[in-house]
């Protein structure tokens, strides 16, 4: 059998991901995580001195804390298998990427293992977040200087 012929066969046999099912699951899991986030920020606004503007930070930190517990107990990967992007896209997914790498590489020690591998999976998010922020701000600055837009 030739390569091309085999690739055709492979296309036939391999099931397509269940798009609709995955989308519905991602929507619900992601939605629920964000709703919990909303409840957490309401909690911070009600009981602490945080405004809608400033409640974002403690909310995100709390969500990452939840992610740590779920990751450590081995539950987050099950949520991940079910929810797909629904659990990967919220900040809890970012937390899961960092925390799971930290737990995994503990066996190589805290300096070389945990320290060196903490951002093994999530590093790209930090990289592209910071770099894109830099360029977006730069472009905006240039546009403002040229008088095309205002801040």
């Amino acid at each position, binding site marked *: 059998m030739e390569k091309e012929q085999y690739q055709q066969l492979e296309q036939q046999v391999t099931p397509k991901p269940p798009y609709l099912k995955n989308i519905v699951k991602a929507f*619900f899991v992601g939605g*629920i995580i964000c709703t919990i986030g909303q*409840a957490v920020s309401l909690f911070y606004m009600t009981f602490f001195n945080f405004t809608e*503007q400033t409640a974002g930070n403690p909310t995100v930190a709390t969500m990452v804390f939840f992610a740590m517990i779920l990751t450590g107990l081995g539950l987050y990967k099950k949520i991940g298998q079910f929810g797909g992007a629904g659990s990967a896209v919220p900040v809890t997914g970012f937390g899961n990427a960092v925390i799971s790498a930290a737990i995994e590489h503990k066996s190589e020690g805290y300096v070389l293992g945990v320290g060196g591998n903490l951002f093994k999976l999530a590093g790209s998010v930090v990289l592209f977040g910071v770099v894109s922020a830099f360029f977006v701000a730069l472009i905006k600055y240039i546009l403002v200087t040229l008088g095309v837009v205002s801040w």
Partner: protein
Amino acid sequence: MKKLQTVLLLLLSISIISGCTDKEKFIVYGSPQNEEELKAVLKEEDYVEKTTVIQHDDKMLVTVQIKPWDKWKKAKLEKKLQKKFDELYPDKEVFVSADYKIYYEANKVKKDGLEDEEISDKIKELKKLAKEEA
């Protein structure tokens, strides 16, 4: 489908919890002399869902909750309202906030029955809180 049931249950319980807080939608607390006028001014603005105004002396704190569908314009509406009040009460020190926290605290001022100087202090405090950056 079990998951769907849980979601519906969650939404239902949230609605019950949050459903109890609505009572009076337009509240003015502190000096009552311009209460009706203020209410009329705020009712003019159709994007305002609920509002609580607390005032003492020349200080006035206007807290509003914007209707959900208009919320994305929050920053602009806040500014617009601030301008309107500045023009209406040029001799008063007015601060407008659409933040939930400030609204919540303003209601608490009424609930706790703060008086006179206490109100002024609270307004000053909340103004500072509202101006904090993320």
